[in-house]
């Protein structure tokens, strides 16, 4: 067991972890931040995406110890200061970009990272960027649409509700 300390959603957080403890386990089990999900054991699904020092990272591929001293942001830290949904979250709700909600935290974290890097992505760029995020429910239609809307694009011409 070793001590790790980091900043999570703007607050100092620390705990005792084994060397093999993953960042996602530390977030879920030690900090009870259960919004970050685990959907696979081969780093493929993206349900666990968080931001570490501003970059999208799969929290299942990083040891908690490696995040020592880092700035971590999870889905719990994404809403506006008054608790309302931020632009990306709101776009997901407005455009029905989620169904069961299990992939959603990872999708929102990835989408936010994409928009930080590329504020006006094309449909193709969005689809390519989501390569590491699997959703089984939505067929991706409304996820891609929500991200385009979050970027301020007019999505009214895209088919369907």
């Amino acid at each position, binding site marked *: 067991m070793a001590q790790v300390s980091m900043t999570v959603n703007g607050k100092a957080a620390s705990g005792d972890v*084994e060397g*093999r403890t993953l960042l996602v386990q530390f977030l*879920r089990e030690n900090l009870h*931040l*259960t*919004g*970050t*999900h*685990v*959907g*696979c*054991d*081969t780093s*493929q*699904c993206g*349900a666990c995406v968080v931001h570490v020092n501003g970059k999208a990272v799969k929290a299942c591929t990083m040891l908690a110890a490696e995040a020592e001293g880092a700035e971590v942001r*999870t*889905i*719990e830290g*994404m*809403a506006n200061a008054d608790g309302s*949904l931020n632009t990306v*979250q709101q776009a*997901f*709700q*407005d455009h*029905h970009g*989620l*169904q*069961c*909600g*299990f*992939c*959603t*935290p990872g999708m*929102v974290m990835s989408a936010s990272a994409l928009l930080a890097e590329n504020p006006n992505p094309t*449909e*193709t760029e*969005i*689809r*390519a960027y*989501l*390569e590491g*995020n*699997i*959703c*089984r*429910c*939505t*067929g*991706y*239609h*409304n*996820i*891609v*649409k929500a991200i385009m809307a979050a970027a301020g694009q007019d999505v009214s011409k*895209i*088919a*369907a*509700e």
Partner: protein
Amino acid sequence: MPKDHGIGASPKRREDLRFLTGTGNYTDDINLYGQLYVHFLRSDVAHGRLNKVDTTDAAAMPGVVRIFTGDDFAGVGGLPCGWQVTDKHGQPMQEPGHPVLAQGKVRHVGDPIAAIVADTYEQARDAAEAIVLDIEELPAVIDMKAAVQDGAPKVHDDLTSNLCYDWGFVEENKAATDEAFKNAAHVTTLELVNNRLVANPMEPRVAVGDYNRSTDESTLYTTSQNPHVIRLLMGAFVLGIPEHKLRVVAPDVGGGFGTKIFHYAEEAFCTFAARQLKRPVKWTSTRSEAFMSDAHGRDHVTKIELALDKDNNFVALRTETYANMGAYLSTFAPSVPTWLHGTLMAGNYRTPLIYVNVKAVFTNTVPVDAYRGAGRPEATYQLERVIDKAARELGVDPIKLRRQNFITQFPYATPVAVEYDTGDYVATMDKLEQIADLSGFEARRKASEAKGKLRGLGINCYIEACGIAPSNLVGQLGARAGLYESATVRVNATGSISVMTGSHSHGQGHETAFPQVIAEMLGIDESMIEIVHGDTAKGPMGMGTYGSRSLAVGGSAMVRATEKIINKAKKIAAHLMEASDADIEVKDGKFHVAGTDKSVAWGDVTLAAYVPHNYPLEDIEPGLEETAFYDPSNFTYPSGAYCCEVEVDPDTGRVTIERFSAADDFGNIINPMIVSGQVHGGIGQGIGQALLEGAVYDDNGQLLTGSYMDYAMPRASDVPFYTVDHSCVTPCTHNPLGVKGCGEAGAIGSPPAVVNAVIDALHSAGKTNVTHIDMPLSPNRVWAAMNA
């Protein structure tokens, strides 16, 4: 103006707020005080005799509390099967036992052998490695046709063979069907495989068992689409715990798609172990475990023949299917290739004679059961592929051939025992031709060809039987359960409403859509209505969510209970206004005396019900809470027409989906936004089946596709935006909302459209010798077919 509330509106989903902020409550988010963790040691051979499981060293490892093996379950029931199919000779299917932990033999890779309970997962996993297994490996049977040969190794030694049943439907039609084939002007034959799939909801399965010593009550938290069904199966058949001492909770569930219907060994184990150890026991599946322990889907090998007369009318249809059951019978497995498949073989067409034969086979693979559509996608795929092939052989337009044979009169009794109440297949095809812009296809094909790509167009229709199901009918067909749904509408004193429904929501948006129905009936605001589901302690017996049944059956129960509420509330209102209850009308959240300006507000009536000072106590009881059970009188029959356009790269065989359009008739629609989302998701899964997904075993029964590294899930870049339309509406005639169900349509209707499109693309380049390619249409399969 689109409506902004009530039936037909698309309010934003209220459940999204918790999911978007990380405050959902999935089963793995539940941790109980004093909780232990279980890890299952699973077989890594497909078939073997379990000579010895030596746990001595493992039991002494740090943190290990107890190790269970099959012996610990000697006096405990096995996992039950919920459907008994009768074979073509009138005999019951062969039904093997299914122990919670393997006893005597292991029968598939992933079969659980021992369960290690420890203080932490890591300790349990470490200890599993110290268990010494003596397994005598036996030859495995993987291929279905080989499995039913004489002398094949038997999956279950106590059965006569690996044949679960040989089913004929309708057996009385067989001779006439064979005769019609002899006299047919043209017969088209197609052999195909409906590929084995893994449902892969993004949330892996989880179970937490808890036991309360002071009350002798057990609670199971589990990732289930139907917690009441799990309580019944596990309580009555496996562990012998009466329902009043057993509570099953399915909180937020991260997708189901069928595979979370079934009762699994891990659920029974955690409940059992918590009672034994007097501490909570938790299991969280890894994705790798999910691949080898969640029931798989599809896996049919079929020969289908279509007979046509000289005018291209369909005169007879005959099929022979081998359906994989895997190593054990999962909860509803026997029903999928039979009653959910054979009854759909008429599709949208007038084919007077149909005979369906299905051989269900045991193999040394993971059990196979319902996956989104369950039997209906298999029926649609073979039918719509053989029609396309027939059109090519006859040199007629595939749309014209379909239109010519459409059923146009309703109700329509098919030769496969169901009666379609309503539909308009011409209308959905007309709509499809419009939204898919078929007239622009040739120009798009030219544009693709200019880029060096082949372009193909695929069309198909589908019919679904859902809203399952009339209990008396399914009882005759072998179901060991009823298929009604329940709802309790509890009106609180201040007028807010809690609705307890047996329809579990795991992505379908019930928490938003169901209140739209009740709000419309009562004229009150949707925000006053809360949907409560997923906890056997909170609502009456319910049958759960699958088979596109929640609105058609669960919604109908809700309507019936609300009607009872309205009847009683009218009596209270009449009393308050000193009028006759026959004169009371409900409008805009008020009770009016017809023809006067007298009214009382909803809240005054509800308050009177609970503070009955001025109340007709001699006539009616205080309180305002009603329960209804709704048992449907028929299935519902959504239908539609789908169109896919693909590009094929002739150099690599890679297929890309360029356009996808779906015109569906779901009957009446409560929330169009949610309906579109359901169709999108189904199409995404159908494209996955057609192009990418396939669970593959080698000859020894090793699962070659055991993770997302090898099992290709559809990703965002594999699919386009879809054009979906559900403006063609023929309301269901036999449920109060006129709804049909929309959850499975996309997955049923899309695979044949994709494959038809690829064949069309190849034919456009003169590859007319390619009449079929089996799914998934991977680049290497397509390339090989083109270059054969």
